[in-house]
C-alpha cells in the first residue's frame, strides 16, 4: 500500500545541513494502522510529510497505491493527494468557513453538484459523530470536535490512506481515546489504511497493529506491537514502553530508599514480566506454594495489547535463599522474565 524505499530528507546546506530523515525504508500494508513513534525532533513529522510529498524526499522513492509519487507531474500529484487524507495536531480548519463549509471545501472539483456535496457532507459529519454542528464555526468547537471535523474533511474524497500527524497530541486523555476509537472504527468499516505519528506509546498501544520507532531521523526498530512491547531492543523503545507502565517506578523508589523498598535480611525485590502470549497460569501463587516462599506484590501492571496480556509485577520475595533461587528458576522456565532489583542477602 505504502512503500518507502531508502527515503532521506535533508534541509539546508553546508554547515547548517540537517538530516531530518536518513535512509528510511518502510512497507505499510493495506488496511493496517501503522504507528510511527519518536521523541520531538526524531524526524517523524518530516517522514509522514514525505508520504504525500508535502516534503519532497532528497533521495529515495515513495509509492502509494502502486504509484511512484516522486515521479508524478504536479497535476498528477495533486490528484494523488486527494486520495491521501491528512489530519494535523492543530486541526488546521479554516476559521472563516463553517464546519460544513470546511468539509465541502475539500470536495471542490470532485464533480459533485451542490445537492450531492451537501448530502455527502451531512453523511460524513454523521459518521464522525458531529452531525449537529454543520453550521457552527471552528472557533465554537472543542478540540475533539475540531479533530472530528478535520477527519470528516480528510475523508471527503474517499481516500485510501489517512495520515495522522500527532492528531491527538493537543487533546486531553479522554478525548484522545474517543478520537482513537473513531479512527479504529473508520479503519474497520472503511478499510482505510492509517499511518499515525505520535510521541505517546499509549496511543500506539491503543490502536496500532505495527509500529516503527524513530530516533535521529532513522527507523531504529519496527515490528508488530506485541513483540515490540514484549522485547524492545533499542533503548529508545524501552524508554517509550516505560512511559506506559508503572513497573519502572520501583527503580526510583529503590533509589530514594522509600519505606516500601526497605528489605529485611534475606529478602529481595524482583520484577517479573510476562513475555508469552498465554499467561493464564497462576504462576505467582503456585511458585509461592510450591517453594514455600512469600511473594508480596508491590506493583502490578497487566495490559491488553492486541488481545494478549503483557506487563508484569514487582514483588518482594522472602524465604530461604535456596528456595527463592529454585522459585526463580521455575519462573524463568515458565517464560517469565525475572530481574532482581535489590537483594538483601544475608552475608
Amino acid at each position, binding site marked *: 500500500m505504502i512503500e518507502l524505499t531508502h527515503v532521506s530528507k535533508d534541509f539546508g546546506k553546508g554547515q547548517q545541513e540537517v538530516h531530518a530523515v536518513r535512509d528510511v525504508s518502510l512497507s505499510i500494508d493495506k488496511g493496517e494502522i501503522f504507528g510511527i513513534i519518536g521523541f520531538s525532533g526524531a524526524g517523524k513529522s518530516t517522514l509522514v510529510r514525505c508520504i504525500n510529498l*508535502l516534503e519532497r524526499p532528497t533521495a529515495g522513492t515513495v509509492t502509494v497505491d502502486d504509484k511512484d509519487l516522486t515521479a508524478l507531474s504536479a497535476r498528477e500529484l495533486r*490528484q494523488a*493527494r486527494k486520495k491521501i*487524507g*491528512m489530519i494535523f495536531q492543530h486541526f488546521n480548519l479554516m476559521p*472563516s468557513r463553517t464546519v460544513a463549509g470546511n468539509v465541502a471545501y475539500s470536495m471542490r472539483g470532485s464533480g459533485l453538484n451542490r445537492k450531492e456535496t451537501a448530502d455527502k457532507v451531512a453523511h460524513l459529519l454523521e459518521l464522525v459523530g458531529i452531525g449537529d454542528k454543520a453550521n457552527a464555526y471552528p*472557533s465554537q468547537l472543542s478540540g475533539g470536535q475540531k479533530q472530528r471535523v478535520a477527519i470528516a474533511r480528510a475523508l471527503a474524497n474517499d481516500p485510501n490512506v489517512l495520515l495522522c500527524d500527532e492528531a491527538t497530541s493537543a487533546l486531553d486523555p479522554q478525548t484522545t481515546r474517543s478520537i482513537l476509537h473513531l479512527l479504529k472504527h473508520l479503519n474497520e468499516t472503511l478499510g482505510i489504511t492509517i499511518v499515525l505519528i505520535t510521541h505517546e506509546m499509549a496511543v500506539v498501544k491503543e490502536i496500532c497493529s505495527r509500529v516503527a520507532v524513530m530516533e535521529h531521523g532513522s527507523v531504529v526498530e519496527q515490528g508488530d506491537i506485541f513483540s515490540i512491547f514484549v522485547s524492545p531492543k533499542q533503548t529508545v523503545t524501552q524508554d517509550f514502553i516505560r512511559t506506559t507502565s508503572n513497573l519502572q517506578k520501583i527503580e526510583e523508589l529503590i533509589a530514594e530508599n522509600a519505606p516500601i523498598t526497605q528489605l529485611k535480611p534475606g529478602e529481595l525485590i524482583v520484577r517479573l514480566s510476562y513475555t508469552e502470549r498465554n499467561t493464564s497460569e497462576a504462576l505467582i501463587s503456585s511458585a509461592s506454594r510450591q517453594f514455600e516462599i512469600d511473594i508480596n506484590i508491590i506493583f502490578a501492571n497487566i495490559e491488553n495489547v492486541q488481545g494478549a496480556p503483557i506487563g508484569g509485577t514487582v514483588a518482594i520475595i522472602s524465604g530461604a535463599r535456596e528456595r527463592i533461587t529454585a522459585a526463580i528458576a521455575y519462573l524463568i522456565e515458565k517464560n517469565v522474565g525475572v530481574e532482581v532489583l535489590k537483594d538483601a542477602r544475608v552475608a
Partner: protein
Amino acid sequence: MQEWLETYLPNVADSFPVLQQSILETLQMVLAAGLISFFLGVLLGTILTVTRRNGILPNPAVYQVLDKLINLFRSIPFIILLFCLLPLTRLLVGTAIGVRGAIVPLVFGTTPFFARQIEASLWEVDPGLIEAAQAMGNSNFEIILHVYWRESIAGIARGTTITLISLIGLTAMAGAVGAGGLGNYAYIYGQQRNRMDIIYVTVVILVLMVSVIQIIGNTIAKRNTH
C-alpha cells in the same frame, strides 16, 4: 440652509461651489487611486507572500527586487514623488495636472504602503491552513484564492481602511499639481486668506469621510471574523 451658512460660516458660503467641487475632486482621487492601488497592492502583497523563502512559490530574486523597490518608494516623501513623476504621469495619462494628473503619483505613493498592509494580513494566515490545502491537492492558485485571500478578508479590510485614510491625507498635497480637493481648498481659501471657518468646515468633512471609511472597514472585518 443658505441663510444659515451666510450667518455662521460667511466665507464657506462665499466659496460654496468651490467646496462642492473640492469634495468631488477628493472623492474622485480617493476612489480612483484607491481602487487602482488596491488591485496593485493585493497583487504585490500576494507576490511578496508567495515568493518569500518559506512561501508556496519561493523565488528569492523576485522577492528581493520587489521588497527593495517597495522600500524605495516608501522612502520618498510624497511631495517629492509628485514632482519626480511628472514626466511619467504625462506619458501615462497625457497630462500632469488636475485630478487625472494627480492619480498617477497617488497610486505610486499608496501602492507600496498598501502592498505592505496586504503582505502583513496574508502573513497572519496560519501556515497550517496552507499545508492542509496542499495535502488535499489544491493548486497554488487555489491556495491563494481560497485560503490566503479568503482567510484574510478581515485583515485586508483593516489594511484597506488604514491605507484609504492615509490616501485622503495625500490628496491634500495633490493640490500642488492643481488637482484641487479639500486639502487644497482649505489651504488656498482658508489658511492663506486667514478664513478659519473654511478650515474648520474642511476638517469636519474630512472627519466624516474618515469615519465612514473606518465604519465600513470595521463592519467588513467584523463580519468576516468567526
